[in-house]
Structures are given as C-alpha cells and as structure tokens.
C-alpha cells in the first residue's frame, strides 16, 4: 500500500512541510491514507489554512466531475448544515451513502479495507468536514431541488460525467455498409454524405428501373439528415 501511494507521488518525503501536508490532504480526499497519516492529515485539516485547502481540493474535484458544481462553498449554508448534522444523529446515513460515490468517480484508486476505515473515521470524528467534503454539494443540490436526500444528488454525480462522454459521439451515428463481397463494415456517417446521397437519388437516378417505383421510393425516403 505504501509503495503504491509513493509511486503515485501523492505522498512524497518531507521535502517542504507545507507542500507535503497539502499532498497528504489530497491523498486523504482520495482515501489513500491510513493509520497515523490519517490523524496527521485530519489535524492539519482542522486548522484554518488546512481547512481552506481541503475545501479547495473538493471544489477542484467537483469541477472536474461536473461544471455545474463550479462554485465555492456558501459558508453560511455550511455552518447551518454542520449544526443541523450535529443535532441529528440519523443524518449520518446520507453521509455514509454519499462517500462511496466518491469512490465510484475515482475507481482507479486502490482503497479496499482502508477506505472503510477512512470513511468511518471521517464520519465519527470529522463530522463537519465530512459533511462539506462528501455530501456538501450533492446535498445542496438536493435541498434546493426539494428532492429526496442522498439519492437524487448521487444520481447527478454519477450521470454528469457519463452524459459528458456521450455528448460528442451521439452526433455521429454508425452505419453498416455492404462491400462487394457482401461483408459488412462499420463506419462513421457524415451529414454531408447524406446530402450527396440525396442529390444522387434525386437527380442522378435516371435509369430504366427508377420509374415509377424508383421515384416513389426516393420521394418517400427521407434522408437521415433531414
């Protein structure tokens, strides 16, 4: 585990204390710390500077996941949320449900047993920051939308990157083309090709077979581009 972490470059030697501590926070956010390192990182995060860094990292993470989340925390809201969370025990549940979604967004990270320890410690001893970090933005969206807590926010987190990935490819449907030997090939279609295909159909087909059935067929056939 230590080897893996070091090879990531996330936790280097104590070269510059400040950078190292920030790296530790980053690793904490990624769920890659364990044992004493977690305690150290949490202690740093409790300080004002560490706290700000922690929030910034999560903002960065949120923006990477979805541009909709590209806005800083509302301190008033967070304070209120923190107070409410402290008052109500059951609210711990959405927090626990929200954390695994962070794991899903960054599935490449190796965490296994470590992750659950991290989660538990965060919930138990780090309630206020955990709220900001794990459920802050998703809960905000949920509360504003009056939706069901937890579930709706999670769905948004999960869907955003996916729809982003589908966006560019959806404009280029794939079509199968018959070759001379009857073999099927698959290629990308271009709207311009459809235009020329339609132009050929409309003006090109003067052959004996085009009338009348050919004309009817071409007239009925709506080219995919239209």
């Amino acid at each position, binding site marked *: 585990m230590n080897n893996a972490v070091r090879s990531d470059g996330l936790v280097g030697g104590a070269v510059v204390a400040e950078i190292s501590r920030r790296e530790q926070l980053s690793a904490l956010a990624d769920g890659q710390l364990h044992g004493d390192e977690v305690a150290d990182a949490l202690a740093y995060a409790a300080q004002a500077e560490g706290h700000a860094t922690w929030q910034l990292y999560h903002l960065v993470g949120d923006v990477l996941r979805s541009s909709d989340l590209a806005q800083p925390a509302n301190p008033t809201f967070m304070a209120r949320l923190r107070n409410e969370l402290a008052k109500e025990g059951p609210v711990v549940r959405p927090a626990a449900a929200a954390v695994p979604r962070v794991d899903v967004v960054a599935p490449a990270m190796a965490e296994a047993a470590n992750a659950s320890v991290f989660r538990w410690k965060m919930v138990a001893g780090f309630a206020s920051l955990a709220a900001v970090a794990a459920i802050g933005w998703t809960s905000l969206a949920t509360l504003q939308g009056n939706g069901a807590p937890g579930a709706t926010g999670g769905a948004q987190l999960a869907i955003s990157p996916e729809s982003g990935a589908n966006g560019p490819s959806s404009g280029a449907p794939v079509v199968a083309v018959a070759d001379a030997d009857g073999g099927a090939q698959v290629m990308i279609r271009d709207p311009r090709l459809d235009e020329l295909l339609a132009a050929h159909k409309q003006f090109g087909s003067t052959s*004996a*077979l085009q009338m009348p059935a050919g004309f009817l067929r071409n007239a009925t056939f709506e080219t995919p581009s239209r």
Partner: protein
Amino acid sequence: MSYPGVLCVWLKALPQHFKHGVIAALCVTGLSVSAGASSAEGGVSSAAEAAPAPVERSILQWIERMHSAPCARPYAGTFVVLAASGAMASSRIWHACEGAQQMERVEALSGTPRTIFRRNDEVRTFWPQSRVVRSDRRDASGLFPRVPLVEGTSISQFYAARPVGQERVAGFVADVVWFKPVDSLRFGYKLWSERETGLVVKLQTLGANGRVLEQAAFSELDLNAPVRVEQLSRLMDATAGYKVVAPVVVKTTATAEGWVLRQPVAGFVPVSCHRRAVSADDGAQGVLQCLYSDGLASVSLFIETFDPQRHPSQPQVSGMGATQLLAQRVLPDVWLTVVGEVPLQTLRLFAGQLERTR
C-alpha cells in the same frame, strides 16, 4: 379523397427472416384494405393455379413494357419504406396520364410533412410547415413517353432477363423476372410486373449471392382510381402562400470542367454533368455532379475543391439500401464523392479512373 394502397421498401440490414415477417404483415394489411376492389382470389398460391408458361421477353422488351405501364391506367396507393435502422416511412400516391402528360403526387405520411408533385420532368416539393416549395427539373431522358434508354448503353450486354414465374403481389398476379448481371460490377434486380398492365408492383435489388439489398413493393394498389391530371396539376400549381425556391443548376460537361475517365468503367457511359448547390454551404460554384449509367444502375461523381475544414483526410464509405457511397481525396486539392446503386468496388474503379485534363 383517398385511395388506399401500400408499396414497401426493405433495406439490406434486416435479417432475412424478419424481412419475410414484414412482407407478410404488410400484405395482410393490403389484402384487408383492398378486399372490396379485387375479386376474391382465395389463397396466395394463385400463381400455381393460373400457371401459364412464363413469358419470354428480351430485357429491352421487359423494360419497354414496364415503362409504358404507369399510363395504362390511373392508380393510387400507399407506399411504405422500411429502413435498416427499423425506422418506417410511408406515403400516399396518386398517378395519372393524359396524352403525353404524366402527373404524380406523393404525400409523405411520416417524417417531415411534405408533398411531392411531378409533372413530366418537373418536380415540386411542398413543405407545409416551413411554407417552402422547392422546384426542380429532372433530366427528361428518364421519363415518359420515351423509353428511358441511356444513349450508348447496351443493357442486354450486361444483364440477362430470366423469367422466374408468377406471384401475387398486392392482390394482382405479376410476372416475375430476374435481371441477372454478367459481372460483379453491378447488382441484379428482380421485378414483379403486373400481368395485365406491366406495372412494376415489386422491385428487389440483389447483391452478390442473391442477397436482397433493397426491396420495394406495392402491397395494395387501386388500378382503377379516379385520378385526373388536371386535378393533380391544379394542386401542384397552388403555391400561393409558399416561398418558391428553385436551386440554380448549370448544365456542363466533364470535358468542359477539365475531367475525364482514363478508361470507361465497363458498361457505364456518361449521361450528364451539372453544377448545382447541394447545400447552403456550397459556394456560388456549387458542386460538379457527373452522372454515368449502364442503363439500369447509375453512378454520380461529385467533384469539389478539397477543404480541410469540411473533408477528412481518410476516405469515407457509407451506404443506404443498395446505394453505396465512397468519398476520398483524389488530388491534393480535389475531394471526390462517388455514389451509385452499384457495389463498392465499382465506385472504387470510378475513383481510380478520374483524371484532370487541365
């Protein structure tokens, strides 16, 4: 007024068994609609009962017969198109002749609402939603009353007609004939020609190994519909309230444009060359479209200036039904798109033979 009937097109990507399923379904629909018009024929196996010897005609006799058929009687029907994706389109059709004038009305029942009128070589497409009429003129060579033989082609040299028997289509008994190509540069065709009038009520385009690439058929047809030319003509001229668009088309020749095929592709002769704007993006120059035909199949060569913004560096291939398309850069500054109802290898031959003369 509405005169029901159905004509269908199947495209190649449908699995064979599915195609048959669809044919059966559409024919049932057609029969139920036309039960009153056509005398009860009983089963679908009437071909076997009638059983006159298959009519022996030369391929040119077949073509002539099929071509003069639409004017034998006014007819009306509904046309259904099934696309490879599973999408279906249909349209209603009216057709009538008077003297040398031939009129047709095609009303799309699916997709963007539009009505296409044809009066001899003049075509008008109405889009009622955008209130636009597009007016086009087809080459008169392919239209009634002349038999659409392309000068210089010898259909009989590249296709052989073989009678296959008789089948019942859309409630009518039809002679089935197979136009078999002599080489692999063109597709084969199977046609169902209504016995009395000769009207093509079904058409299949066959690829290698007899695979059906595309299929069209009237599944229901009224050959006694009270359709009149002046009726359709009046509707075609009712453009009031519409914006009439007539794309500029300039007739030219390949030689005049500085292009030549090093060697003709077997059986295909040049038919025409035009400069036209295919889309709004095409400049004042438009796109050069040169058409070649072997008498049955046709191939369009679209030649335009290579534009790295619009054209990819890799060749493109595509297809719709039996129509294949190949687009590639043939010279550093020339982008060529070849389209035709022929195998891809034929398009490749065309692309390889194109040469600039100046």
